[in-house]
């Protein structure tokens, strides 16, 4: 076969491995319209509704003391939950990606479990455990400890729902990387701690950051689980998403959407950072 006919065959094959022009146009149009109506319009609507009463009202709703208290509580809960799950994620990934042991696949399934559980149930189990009528309720009351309707409960519920995010990013990453460098470091006389800090951590750093961003985004936005354990005490146990709900139920729509738009901006920022990190991971591997 000559070069010319090969080229011709290639062109012909290309033309028949795609669809007719009108089919392509319809599929693209349906996709664009669907995403536009379903995702883009609601996103724009949040900002339109937030700014409905003017920029002054918008800023007023955000610097309102109750909103600022909610922002603080949300950040506090995330600041505790995310590092806990970060340490867990590294430990779990090291055990699962580097070693083979009985029950390994069961462990992987159990780590994913919080993603399969309804957020309402995630919050509810802590009420059953620590609530006034819970298993440990009488003991907690005797020792003047409060978990439910207080910060510890909100932290526990947040930790539960964001539990797998770091581990899920790190396990496949560490599995794909192999462990030759670590073994070399040990042979050359590094202590296990030196090996971990100088070899392992730099190798997984971007995956780690990616997992932390995912985990933080979910922690800041969690609604159902936190709603069950919080008790909705304004200015005290209300996180930002709960504050949005309270405002909405009080018919303070402008303020509700103003606070919601803050959460949208945080979510969009997280998304941009994730995309940048994903592009970086692709470049370096």
């Amino acid at each position: 076969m000559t070069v010319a006919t090969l080229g011709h065959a290639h062109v012909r094959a290309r033309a028949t491995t795609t669809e007719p022009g009108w089919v392509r146009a319809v599929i693209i149009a349906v996709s664009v319209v669907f995403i536009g109506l379903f995702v883009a319009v609601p996103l724009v609507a949040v900002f339109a509704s937030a700014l409905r009463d003017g920029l002054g009202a918008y800023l007023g709703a955000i610097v309102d003391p109750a909103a600022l208290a909610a922002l603080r509580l949300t950040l506090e809960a995330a600041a505790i939950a995310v590092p806990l799950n970060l340490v867990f994620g590294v430990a779990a990934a090291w055990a699962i990606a580097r070693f083979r042991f009985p029950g390994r696949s069961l462990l992987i399934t159990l780590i994913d479990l919080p993603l399969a559980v309804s957020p309402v149930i995630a919050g509810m189990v802590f009420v059953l455990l620590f609530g006034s009528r819970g298993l440990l309720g009488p003991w907690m009351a005797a020792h003047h400890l409060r978990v439910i309707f207080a910060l510890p409960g909100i932290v526990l519920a947040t930790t539960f729902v964001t539990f797998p995010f770091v581990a899920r990013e790190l396990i496949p990453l560490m599995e794909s990387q192999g462990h030759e460098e670590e073994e070399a470091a040990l042979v050359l006389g590094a202590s296990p701690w030196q090996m971990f800090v100088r070899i392992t951590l730099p190798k997984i750093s971007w995956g780690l950051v990616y997992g932390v961003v995912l985990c933080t985004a979910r922690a800041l936005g969690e609604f159902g689980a936190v709603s069950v354990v919080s008790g909705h005490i304004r200015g005290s146990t209300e996180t930002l998403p709960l504050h949005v709900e309270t405002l909405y139920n009080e018919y303070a729509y402008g303020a509700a959407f103003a606070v919601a738009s803050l959460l949208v901006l945080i979510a969009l920022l997280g998304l941009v950072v994730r995309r940048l990190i994903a592009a970086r991971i692709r470049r370096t591997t």
Partner: protein
Amino acid sequence: MGKRTLPGFGLSLGYTIVYLSLIVLVPLATLVIKSAELSWGQLWDLATSPRALASYRVTFGASLVAALINVVFGTLLAWALVRYEFWGKRAIDALVDIPFALPTAVSGLALTAVLAPTGAIGRFLEPLGIHAVYTPLGISLALAFIGLPFVVRTVQPVLEELEPEIEEAANVLGASRWQTIGRVIFPVVAPAMVTGFALAFARAIGEYGSVVFISGNKQMETEITPLLVMSRLEQFDYPGATALALVMLVTSFVLLLAINGLGAWTRRRIGATA
């Protein structure tokens, strides 16, 4: 395999198991312990009260509709994103992640605003007699919004892995384009579509935040099971909440196992063709 030469196995596994138990397993076990305080008869009565049964119908029905919407449009979207070049493609690809990134309460609020009779989309539906807010339709739409990324992001990588040579071969051997899609592409993509469906369905069943604003929460009509659990808890009806939560938890377990099984099936299918 010589993997035991690496240090830290005992420490990392021990820490993993202790932390997993403290945060996840012990709290979930509480649910089982609490339900053991009830007899089977009581549990059954609480889990099958008329209001509970109505909530299952709403939850499972709306989740099913949502997951079906997701499979159809999600697969179409994944196909367009992988196979075609068009203006705004990268923006569309980025928008697919939005439902996953947004806090659920914000999604619920945004969809309610848009679909309300005076909203940007609702005002066009209302003259047609379509009421999207405070109806099962609204619940389905909210759940479809939440579940969309699951199907797109499951099907997309499988389509990217498909080698064009296979389609060329099918074409050279005389298959029409539709035969190639039906007999060569579809069998490889189908497991991913089913996995995406199951993931979206599983997520929809437990979903709370995005639904409560749009559903109107009318008893027996638009009350989803997670919301019924919530109102039982608010009335300190712990047995009632426990029975419902147990039903949901068992359903989630079964779906999680099914999804893991489907994942293995997908990998085998792709492995067989690659």
